[in-house]
């Protein structure tokens, strides 16, 4: 199994470390040909506008759209924004997941936070019963989801922060910033 991490900008090195801990083969993806032979793709945290522009400039946006129709993609924070269909502003998106996302939904950096989340599907998939410690940084929320999208996690006030549509996964938070690899293990279960 070989998993690619989009390496245009952001926290791609952290995702690569987590994947290597799980002894998975990895590749950095900067150009369309780097998707060849991959079984899955992670789009890391970072700035979605930066990644979008760099993806468009080198024809990677369309290549990722095609890739996501057959293979699993997981987006964390900026990656979740890129996977979505609608962010209420004009910027390059993959539009693969039927979710509406609001960027910077919690305010500025001083409003960023960490919190423990109860994520039943994650517990079921990994067999570990502890809550999941989630790190949110200038995070987006998933405002609404379409049919066929399963909500995986919400904040205590009900706002959606993780969802799955088939083999496409979106999280508002950053599993790559913690030592807990359960979310990466969960993503690998979506890969053939």
């Amino acid at each position, binding site marked *: 199994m070989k998993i690619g991490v989009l390496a*245009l900008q952001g926290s791609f090195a952290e995702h690569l470390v987590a994947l290597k801990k799980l002894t998975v083969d990895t590749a950095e993806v900067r150009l369309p040909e780097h998707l060849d032979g991959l079984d899955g793709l992670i789009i890391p945290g970072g700035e979605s506008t930066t990644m979008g522009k760099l993806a468009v400039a080198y024809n990677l946006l369309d290549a990722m759209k095609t890739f996501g129709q057959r293979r699993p993609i997981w987006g964390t924070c900026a990656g979740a924004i890129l996977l979505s269909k609608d962010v209420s502003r004009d910027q390059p998106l993959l539009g693969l997941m039927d979710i509406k996302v609001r960027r910077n939904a919690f305010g500025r950096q001083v409003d960023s936070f960490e919190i423990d989340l109860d994520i039943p599907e994650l517990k079921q998939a990994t067999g570990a019963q502890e809550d999941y410690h989630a790190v949110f940084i200038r995070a987006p929320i998933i405002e609404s989801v379409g049919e066929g999208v399963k909500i995986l996690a919400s904040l205590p006030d009900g706002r959606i922060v993780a969802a799955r549509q088939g083999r496409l996964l979106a999280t508002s938070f950053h599993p790559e910033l913690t030592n807990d690899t359960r979310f990466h293990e969960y993503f690998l279960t979506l890969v053939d």
Partner: protein
Amino acid sequence: MDAKKSTWTEKKGLAQMLKGGVIMDVVNVEHAKIAEDAGACAVMALERVPADIRADGGVARMSDPDMILKIMDAVTIPVMAKCRIGHFVEAQILEAVGVDYIDESEVLTPADEANHILKHNFNVPFVCGCRNLGEALRRVGEGAAMIRTKGEAGTGDVVEAVRHARTVLGDIRKLTAMADEELMRYSKEIGAPYELVKETKELGRMPVVNFAAGGVATPADAALMMQLGVDGVFVGSGIFKSGDPAKRASAIVKAVTHYQDASILAEVSKNLGEAMVGRNVSQMPEAEKMAGRGW
């Protein structure tokens, strides 16, 4: 399930999200939008770019909060702003304004010639400049959650950025080869907290994100800094003091992502128009250098 804010993970984490990106100095809303459109991962809001601070002389201070707020309203990417070294009230004001990161910067005139700000006292994260590992770890010890090598701002001459990056990264390479019992002596020698020296050795890298700054003017300069081993690049005067800022900004963003791909670097380096005029640092009087500010 109580949420925790402004933790060390949160402060360091935003810098981790900026990695592989370009942070651009902007002096107004128009510049900020050009920077965002070019793919900047953050902007530094300030009234004058370093080249103009040099040209104007006098005391350089924190920018007007009103201009910072206008830039915050105009872009969706993180907005940073500079305060003077040791001027913790300017920092309090910038925190109240709501900037995402504060740069306690040698580019402004220092307010304290002995002490930096105790940055752990703030909820907002800080970035600070350094010329070597000791200086970097002193700043991290005070609470800086991100480091940048200083270079020599406002010159367009990359030589000092290279010197400082080579020094910091070389210091780390030496440290990783040391025996554990040598770390206390080394901490004493470089004037850095022992625990952070130990952590740096264990990680084999700076314990926080480390960008390059000060003198980057071309896509090749930016890729040079990336190949030397920094996590990303600040570009100050280099963009908006050049002939075609939008094109140059976009080219530098591409160069930082594709820093190992010489054919892409060649492509983005074409037809960029005039680079900033620049000043040769080796011919500059010591008193005009900013990098020596910081203790």
